[in-house]
């Protein structure tokens, strides 16, 4: 699990388009919850993010924060991190540049595109407009925390099945938004409601038709399973 460290030589990473050559984030549900065994994995975002994961807890900033820094606790995909950050450090950058969780993308850095969407305490937000310090104690779920080992979340599986992307760059954000929407009873299940609710996730490739199909298909599967 050196993947989490800020010293990984990314040149060793292989670009095998066929299958993930390695998992950036080795997630195991562990034995920590009965819920894990009974409820479907995708019903457990909340639980997963609170569970003790087998994955080691790193990086950790054990030392006292340097001048001008503050120490925060962030639980990311169930892993607790202690980090020293500057007040102006942005949550998106901390995840990408320090925790090396690069699945969350930056498409504008100004809250305008949705590529950086992730869940904080199960609510979808733009991580580019969030200070890391103000999320001290919060629980963050990123695209890397969605699947359970090799078992994809139904929304991920549906995106793959329906070709709900082209370049894939907006995809993490689309999927995180979709997961939030599907778990939100306040948002209608009809196509127009989904389109409206997802309008903060721009797809410049224009794969909207397939994204909608994927979301609705995942809805069916999640309902069927729960």
């Amino acid at each position, binding site marked *: 699990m050196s993947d989490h460290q800020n010293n990984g030589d990314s040149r060793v990473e292989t*670009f095998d388009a066929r299958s993930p050559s390695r998992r950036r984030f080795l997630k195991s549900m562990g034995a920590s919850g009965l819920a894990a065994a009974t409820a479907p994995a995708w019903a457990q975002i909340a639980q997963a993010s609170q569970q003790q994961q087998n994955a080691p807890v790193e990086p950790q900033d054990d030392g006292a924060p340097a001048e001008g820094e503050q120490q925060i606790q962030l639980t990311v995909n169930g892993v607790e991190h202690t980090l020293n950050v500057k007040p102006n450090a942005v949550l998106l950058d901390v995840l990408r540049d320090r925790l090396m969780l690069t699945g969350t993308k930056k498409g504008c850095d100004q809250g305008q595109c949705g590529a950086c969407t992730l869940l904080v305490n199960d609510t979808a937000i733009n991580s580019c407009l969030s200070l890391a310090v103000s999320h001290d104690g919060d629980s963050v779920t990123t695209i890397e925390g969605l699947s359970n080992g090799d078992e994809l979340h139904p929304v991920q599986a549906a995106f793959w099945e329906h070709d709900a992307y082209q*370049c894939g760059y907006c995809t993490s954000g689309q999927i995180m938004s979709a997961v939030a929407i599907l778990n939100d009873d306040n948002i209608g299940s009809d196509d127009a409601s989904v389109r409206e609710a997802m309008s903060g996730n721009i797809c*410049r490739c224009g794969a*909207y038709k397939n994204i909608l199909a994927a979301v609705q298909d995942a809805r069916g599967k999640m309902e069927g399973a729960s």
Partner: protein
Amino acid sequence: MSDSIIGAGPKRIDGQRKVTGEAPYAADHHPDNMAYGYGVFSTIASGTITGLDLEAARQSPGVIDIFHHNHFPELHRTPSSMAQGNKVEETRLPFEDNRVHYEGQFVALVVADTFDNARAAARKVGVSYQRDDAIANLDQGVKAHGTKPGSGNHERGDAEGNFDGAAHSIDVTYTTPVETHNPMEMHASVASWEGDRLSIFESSQGVVQQRGALSKIFGIPPSHIRVESPFIGSGFGSKLWMWPHAVAASVAARETGRPVQLVVPRPQMFTTTGHRPETRQRMRLATDDNGRLVSLRHESINTTSFTDQYVETCGSVTQSLYSCPNLTVSHETTRVNRGTPTSMRAPGAAPGLFALESAIDEMALAAGVDPLEFRLNNYADRDESQDLDFSSNHIREATEKAAEKFGWHDRNPEVGSMRDGHEIVGYGMAACNWEAIKRECEARVSLRADGTAYVTCATQDIGTGTYTIIAQTVSDITGLGLEKITVRLGDTSYPNGPISGGSWTTATTLPAVAAATREAIKELKGYATSEKGDFADVDNDSDSLVFENGQLTHDGQGVNYVDVLKGQKLASADGHAHTQGADDRYSYRSFGAHFVEVRWDPGISNLRVSRVVSAIDVGRVINSLTARNQVEGAIVMGLGMAHFEATDYDARNGRPVNNNYAEYVVPVHADQPPEVDVILLDYPDLEFNEFGARGIGEIGITGMAAAVANAVYHATGKRIRDLPIFKEKLMENIPAVQSA
């Protein structure tokens, strides 16, 4: 299996990596000890840098170095030749001198230990300028210094002489604004040096061209440079050719001795990474009494930069889509203070077909003919511009099929006659068209002893599905399942592949991959028939030795190829191929037609595209899932072009004013028409290549804007000749403004 995998719709082999966030894009790379660059960009569009105040920035936390025109190594320009493999669009190097040619040009580059520190310091750099008057738009350019002849002109017959006195004629001018590609992923470079070897992760549609350009610029051999772009957050043309940031990042990495990541911020994606230029297109068309075209002139001017000549070949389609004996196509450019334009999805054809297909609509009306009828009467049956037959052309069938499915014949031709509650419904159509290109290409295929195949080619998958169709190709020939095939692209250490653009990737790479696969099989047969082989007694070239579904068989006796290799302790049988570009026996083009329904609600001045039916003839479809997706996506982008998209520049100083994703309006989910129906005709074009595929990335956007504009005319009676079709162009009772 062999027959079905080509043309089937298997899901993407790289799909899992995309849906899990594992697919690595350029800025996802974090080599050891990496520093971050952040640009300082000009805030004037024309002038000279007279001073730089770097004190505050230097003292800013974490700053490592600050580059600018007085602190930048001497480099060389690239000759910028596509044939040589070193093309760029903006030939001027960053920080070359103190001149400013456009707003948003690099004027300094801060390198610091973190992204935030670099950005914070960049904000503290003070720049003073001597400002010159800027040429802010096409009109100003033409007025200030006229036009310069462009390329791609064509003339046949006597268009002028056959215009006056023709039975029906129109003389109209269309304009299209600057559009910005705005791929989701901002341009990014992560550069590192080891001695005099440069390695760079780039969001690139053309790693080989970038390597060539860097080689010329740094004066080091191509073999010392590795450009990698395994995944890219799309480009739509903006990432075909390297832009200044990649040079800046490479220099910063060399000078600081650390890997440097440099991302172009979204606002500068509007300035320093290309755009579709502004165009003005005059269309003069005339027909005889029977509604047959007798004269057609398409004269266009586009804006280019002060540093480079870029021609938007708006008339490229006009010269061959319709039959007309007297035809003139001409292109000119005029210089403005904007960055250098570049190809954007269907360059030339997208703005060109807005003009042509709107004009055809106007011409049909002037001649009193239904626009569908008019097109069927006038479509060319052979390419009159090149005097060649089309290799394969099913535009009539495409038009008729789409019309049928759309319900064109139920259309009441009277303007504004179709109502639905508050809304007026309009139907419009347009043809679409794109050239088919095939270039030379290399590829390497290994059939490996572990039962898998491994394919490499230095082309890219920009989201079009190249990984998958290459795997389909290998699967088709070898019988191996897709899960057994590894495809690697986007790395200059692989055999030379084409840029991912012009819709030519499919037609170019598949033949090379197929040939390399066959070469690998041939090598395998060589091993099998060698002394130590299972078929030592069989003649190597003998047709009786066949490879099928992973088996070598001879006279009913089969051996799995894995056993052939293992038997001789060999790792793999390898094939390398170098295939050639298209010949000139035919005119190779793709065809199609869009039918669009718009709804105009005059009570709230609301315009929506509610339905699109498109039929596309692109030869054989290799992957029905990804192909359909390409056309659907292009329709969305075409709808954006019709409806919203325009980069606005302040006419006083050339400043882009809506250079962000909130105010440069692109379609969002809610704009997706509830019904989009794409018909893929799927007629293999076997004259073009063995797969019969012509490529599908661009054609879907061509004609879309015209189809929308034609539908808007049908609904409202307003002919919008200037894109985008903003609501105010359709509204009544807008008070006049006294200019101050």
